[in-house]
């Protein structure tokens, strides 16, 4: 897989900078600037329901360290968080709580479904009466990470994917349409 410019760390500022004596002028689209700034400082909500939460903790620890990409401030309250990482199974009793947490988050808000349980119920898909078969039955999901539990690298990749998605400035529908055509 070829690395994108962002993954290689050669990301460019979205706009033109004209150097002038006594300061400079930036010519850019306002939306691009906002998306660029927004994508580099996403605060995740610590929403760990089960096993994947441990791998999320591993990503926060020094070996993987998601603060390198601007995710360092894990928030305990949804009102200060930008992205909710659903790490674990969502059961019927937890469903309304997840919806409420999502509603409490300030716009713009993003969702990452981490692990098989959050994608589809995973190992708890068959023969169980209490598991929600995928968190996207409750709230819209931006990025899915397969695995049971996913490796920490997979979560890092998902975080970078989310950053790219925000920078592109496209909606979910636009991305879906483009990926179908492409």
């Amino acid at each position: 897989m070829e690395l994108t410019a962002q993954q290689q760390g050669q990301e460019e500022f979205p706009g033109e900078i004209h150097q002038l004596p006594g300061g400079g002028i930036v010519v850019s689209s306002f939306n691009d600037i906002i998306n660029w700034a927004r994508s580099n400082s996403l605060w995740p909500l610590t929403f760990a329901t089960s096993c994947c939460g441990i791998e999320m903790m591993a990503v926060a620890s020094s070996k993987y360290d998601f603060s390198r990409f601007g995710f360092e401030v894990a928030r305990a309250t949804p009102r200060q968080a930008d992205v909710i990482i659903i790490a674990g199974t969502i059961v019927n009793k937890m469903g309304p709580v997840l919806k409420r947490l999502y509603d409490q988050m300030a716009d713009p808000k993003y969702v990452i479904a981490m692990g098989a349980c959050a994608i589809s119920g995973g190992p708890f898909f068959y023969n169980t009466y209490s598991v929600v078969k995928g968190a996207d039955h409750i709230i819209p999901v931006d990025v899915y990470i397969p695995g049971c539990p996913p490796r920490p690298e997979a979560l890092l990749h998902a975080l970078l994917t989310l950053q790219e998605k925000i920078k592109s400035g496209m909606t979910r529908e636009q991305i879906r349409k483009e990926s179908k055509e492409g």
Partner: protein
Amino acid sequence: MYSATEVIRETAPADGSMGELVINVGPQHPATHGVLHLVITLNGETIRKVEPHLGYIHRSIEKMCESLSYRQFIYVTSRMDYLSSHINNLGCALTVEKGMQIEVPSRAKVIRVLMAELTRIASHELWLGAMAMDLGAFTPFFYAFREREMINEVMEDTCGARLTMNYIVPGGVMYDLHPEFQQKVKAFVRQFKEKVVEYDDLVTNNVIFRNRMEGVGVLSKEDAVSYGCTGPVARGSGLSCDIRKLFPYEVYDQVEFDEVLETGCDSFARYMVRVREMNQSIRIIEQLIDNIPEGDFQAKTKAVLKLPKGEFYSRVETARGEFGVYIVSEGGTTPYRIKFRSPGFSNLSALEHMVKGSKIGDLMATMGTLDLVIPDIDR
């Protein structure tokens, strides 16, 4: 710390006395280690009542197991107490082996014990980091995860997964050890012995930590018995309950180790039990790592396992306490009923007794030392 807490109602009695305040902690709260919901009744800052509400991660694992074969159901139990997933699998495999009367090769037994002790250390490491975080100290988390990652690497080499290992099959283990297993485990043991001193400097001998731990969350030996506490929680109250010593399974009767007992009965005693237990686990690993017998790693078993009609029970010591597996078989390929006895449930039931009358600030410090894993409680 209580930012996710939400005040729901405040009642002021008509007689003019101080009202009781009911607050909810959780289900989404960083210190509940998952999705536990506590309804706390406060009088000022003093805790009057703590009511745990369960079921936010009830995945009906016991019901699921009834439709899975005796080979398959073992792997669902990895997701119960995911921090000691290997020991959960071991408990289930032991029950099936007991029912089928399968003789496990000695190599497999030693491998199982080695993995179980590595899992126990990994679990206690994570607990150390998480509990220190509950108290507001972030640094021990990084120290603990440094060593934990080494264990994860060993697990990944041999089992193929970092957390939910799924390494055990009835009759042995799934694969043989990775060629670098011994070397990597020895490197880990070396590093652990070198670095465990840092935990003492950072946490154990820290004045703030000691003040918040000593004399807090007292659970007497009698109460530990009556609440059915097991594991480090009960051993912190001086109750001898280590299944590895009392009802030895695998090769625990052939290795030397001490059952760690503390008589402090408070949060600090429970902390010390776990730290000392890590050293005992290292001791077991050191005895076994050079003495892994040659031979098969798996006994020859039939492709389809059928347990004879009857009831089977076996228990193991996980990082949290006694884990029991109870299988009722009708003689078919799937169990008729499975019941798991998880240590967390009983330990949680003692929480109210431990924190009643103390300040709200001590609640998280006490709950941290119980080492709760909520999916283990809800199942």
